């Protein structure tokens, strides 16, 4: 095989290899869908985040508009401090919007659902979402249910 032919074949090999890497990154992986463009961060405090993890989606009306970027504990008042990164183009969320930790399906992954409020001013970089609803912890739920049952029987 001539020198030029070898060079062309090698060039083809390297090109397809790189193409495979790109396919891995954007089609198999989530590099494309996760780079949401510019975004801003708001903070929400929860009593209990259940199994929420970093990178979990943040949704509005079921549509993903951002993700959880950081989870920490607030030592002052023993609550979970969750940072939500939201796409910049969704810039009209009222300041009194509420956040809830929800579960997709019965045993699915946890995500944060936003419910818009009614105020005129909007959430900005660093704003705090005050109205939050914690994750539903199954053990607590069952415990409460049993307690109510017992209560009901006594009456």
């Amino acid at each position: 095989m001539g020198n030029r032919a070898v060079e062309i074949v090698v060039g083809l090999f390297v090109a397809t290899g790189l193409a495979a890497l790109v396919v891995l990154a954007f089609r198999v992986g989530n590099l494309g869908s996760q780079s949401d463009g510019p975004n801003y961060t708001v903070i929400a405090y929860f009593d209990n985040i259940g199994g929420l993890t970093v990178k979990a989606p943040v949704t509005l009306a079921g549509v993903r508009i951002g993700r959880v970027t950081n989870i920490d504990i607030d030592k002052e008042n023993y609550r979970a401090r969750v940072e939500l990164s939201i796409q910049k183009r969704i810039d009209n969320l009222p300041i009194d919007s509420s956040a809830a930790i929800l579960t997709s399906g019965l045993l699915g992954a946890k995500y944060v659902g936003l419910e818009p409020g009614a105020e005129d001013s909007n959430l900005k970089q660093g704003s705090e979402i005050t109205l939050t609803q914690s994750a539903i912890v199954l053990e607590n739920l069952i415990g409460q249910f049993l307690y109510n049952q017992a209560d009901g029987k006594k009456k």
Partner: protein
Amino acid sequence: MLASLGARLLSFLHRMGCAFVFFLNSLRALLSVFGHFSLLIKQLYAVGVLTLLIILVSGLFVGMVLGFQGYNTLVDFGAESSLGLMVALSLTRELGPVLAALLFAGRAGSALTAEIGLMKATEQLAAMEMMAVDPFEQVIAPRLLAGIIAMPLLAALFTVMGVYGGYLVGVLQLGVDSGVFLSSMQHGVDFYDDIVTGVIKSGVFGVTITWIAVYEGYDAVPTSEGVAKATTRTVVSASLAILGLDYLLTAMMFGGA
């Protein structure tokens, strides 16, 4: 008994030491490769292009098998919608880098050892030295660099073919919805956690395999028997090194999570 064990340990350490010095020498010679790219191109052809076919075919079949097995397991839990995720994660994290590396060791690694061993046995390396050409620059470094470049590309191709194979079986044959397959995959596979780690793995494997292969060739006893033994040793030690390193790398990169 104890003495022979000690002697074995010493000779093992001696070989490791020699291999390390050899590696440093090759690294020093790597710079010279940028002087003559044609050597690198030739070696990329030998270790990359010639390994391509076996990588593509194996990747496709491994992916198809994963599709079948994954479906049969997942369908019991009603979770066949996660098939894409399962296939893609197995391939990007483990099977892609590891299987591609094992194939690479068998196809390209053995060929490298045999070629260099033969060059030694026919005094070609000595002849280069006498022509004032450093065999490290002329022979070793281009092969090492070609292996390091080719391995991640081959692993990526293996993985893509595997995902495609899983897609073929899952979607076209077993009737998983194509959108569900793709979205569960894209949703669950993380660029940094899964793909970058896979590429890092295959890069480490590439360095290890080519290092072992060229060293075994360079160190071979210069007879036909010596070259044959060195070739076998390359495949055995490279395969062991891949699996051992895979455990270490997995523990390092996923251990905390």
